[in-house]
């Protein structure tokens, strides 16, 4: 067990270094406009994701449970989710520039994880449930998707301001496509956030006798859900596409971050361990 946790420790720091290196390569790719650097950055990020997966597996085996139960584990998994979703979008839409914006966010989140206590503690009885895996893993995918949509929103907003249009035209999808990819990412996030809320409600009903009790974390998940539901309705009703949608995606992610970090620190409730 200790050996596995030690290995996780080593892997975790290697992963931080790889994500840092990937961020650097992405920046150089944009700065020097060399495609090889973009490819190297994707490769390093992919390697980082593989080792990150291994680190989480080691943590899970070492702790004898899913590594999703405290601030450190959730932050590390959140970074993993962001990395996974961003790589899927990079490959799916042949869009390496996305990495240049996603990698710093991943680095930020994993940096936050590194600042948390990494001690392996026994789980409190309420967390010993098979719903834990469903609830938290869907939250990771949801947060990761919203993160990617915010990054895409930022790229959308910056795209027009870039001087070297040739490079941007070659490596960044057209605005309409960018907007649609961001929309797809929000859809994925909203679906998984709904899964998170519903699996959480089922679990809360079993553990606490109430599937909804207006706990700050529950309330802010609902606020996030309502914000993205508004975003989807505005797209249809008022044709809020393009710039307005991009701003909305960024604001929505700020709300996601508040739900994740802000609620834990400012509004303690029954989710204060998460």
């Amino acid at each position: 067990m200790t050996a596995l946790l030690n290995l996780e420790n080593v892997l975790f720091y290697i992963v931080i270094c790889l994500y840092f290196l990937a961020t650097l390569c992405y920046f150089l790719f944009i700065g020097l406009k060399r495609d090889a650097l973009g490819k190297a950055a994707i490769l390093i990020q992919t390697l980082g994701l593989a080792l990150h997966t291994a680190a989480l597996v080691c943590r899970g085996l070492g702790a004898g449970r899913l590594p999703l139960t405290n601030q450190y584990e959730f932050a590390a998994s959140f970074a993993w989710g962001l990395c996974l979703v961003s790589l899927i979008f990079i490959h799916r839409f042949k869009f390496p520039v996305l990495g240049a914006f996603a990698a710093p966010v991943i680095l930020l989140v994993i940096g936050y994880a590194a600042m948390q206590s990494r001690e392996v503690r026994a789980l409190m009885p309420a967390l010993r449930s098979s719903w834990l895996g469903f609830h938290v893993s869907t939250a990771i995918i949801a947060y990761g998707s919203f993160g990617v949509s915010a990054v895409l929103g930022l790229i959308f907003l910056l795209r027009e301001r870039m001087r070297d249009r040739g490079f941007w035209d070659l490596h960044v999808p057209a605005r309409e496509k960018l907007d649609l990819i961001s929309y797809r990412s929000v859809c994925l996030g909203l679906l998984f956030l709904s899964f998170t809320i519903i699996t959480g409600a089922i679990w809360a009903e079993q553990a606490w006798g109430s599937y909804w009790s207006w706990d700050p974390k529950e309330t802010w998940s609902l606020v996030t859900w309502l914000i993205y539901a508004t975003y989807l309705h505005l797209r249809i009703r008022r044709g809020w596409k393009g710039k307005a949608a991009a701003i909305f995606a960024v604001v929505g992610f700020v709300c996601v971050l508040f739900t994740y970090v802000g609620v834990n620190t400012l509004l303690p409730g029954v989710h204060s361990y998460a």
Partner: protein
Amino acid sequence: MKKLWKFLGSMRFAILLLVILAAACAGGSFIPQGLDFQAYAARYSERTAGLILALGLEDVFHCWWFLLLTAFLCGNLLLCNLSRLPQLMKRTKAAADPAQLSAPSVTLEGLRDPDPVFAALRMPKPREGADPQGRTLRWSVKNPVGLWGAWVCHLGILLLILGFALGQATKEEYTVYGVPGQTKQVGDSPYALCIRDFRVEREADGAVAQYSAELTVLDLSDPGDPLAVDTTASVNHPGSAFGFKLYQNSMGDAATLTVRWDGETVQETVLCVGEHATLMDTPLALLLGSVIREGEAVGYGYQIYVGEELYDRNVQWEGDLIPDFQPYQVSFSQARAYTLIQMKRDRFTPLALLGGLITLLGLFLAFYLQTCKLWAVREADGSWTLRGSSPKGGALFAERLREAAREAETKRS
């Protein structure tokens, strides 16, 4: 009047409600809930406290305007779904009708064979017919059920809110606490709860693994013939009896208070931490404040009240007596854990759950079963003109279609 109905079921109204509800929820999470005027005044100012109470912000999620907003949201969802139903049925029917194939988002001309494109886009096997001009027409429609996504999602949310509201209005909820061996009346209900056993299971390192209570629920509706159901409640595994779910909610320390006179026990009461007992016929009350464990030694923190005034506080160790009550011999002993059981009966939880699952299904249909149509017409020169439309696919669908057509043509040549 018609205009009002239209507005109440409109998307504009829905957006307004979503924004206000989000703001209200966010506000409600920042303002501490359930405090009184003095507490708010101490925290903020008297003026702010007055404003909080006047607007019902001390109980945002149950105040009249929040409930009204939620009711409006339900009305909006219902009206929206009712008004869209005929249109949706028409669109679903039209999706399979070749006469309705119009307004393509992409048109590709000069194709030699459209079938590989249908296959590349994983469209159902195309059907063949003739267009109004008599030309050969092949068409295929994928995921017409996707048109129903938003409608199904709205229905799910409606059921979810309805289940939650009905559950809140009709639920029966009681809490009972005690130590093993005690039987307690369950609130004002005809039930009693007997705590047969309560265990705290621990890991090898001492960490708590599970709290588990063995219970018997007695239905005393007919005192001559009481019914009994045995059940076990542990964290994450509620017990059940007579339609109630029994949750292992909490636990704490308890002890037995014994009063002796001349060596004979004259009063014996089980007190949980925070509870008090009046001693015999005296004005003295004894409150059990805490149970202290130091190695093998067990102590009981207590407070003595005369009327409502605190007279003394101290710690009595196991085996000692509390000195203030001579000639009575008063002592705490038998420190043990008490369990707090929550009994709840909410008949509408399954409705809320169903609503949640339907919402998920609706979102899946809306986002991942996107309707798209593809149709090809054979021109006089033998080439095919391919047209496609996907309301939600937009530029991505157009790109995929062009790519598929390009690949099909390359392979053919």
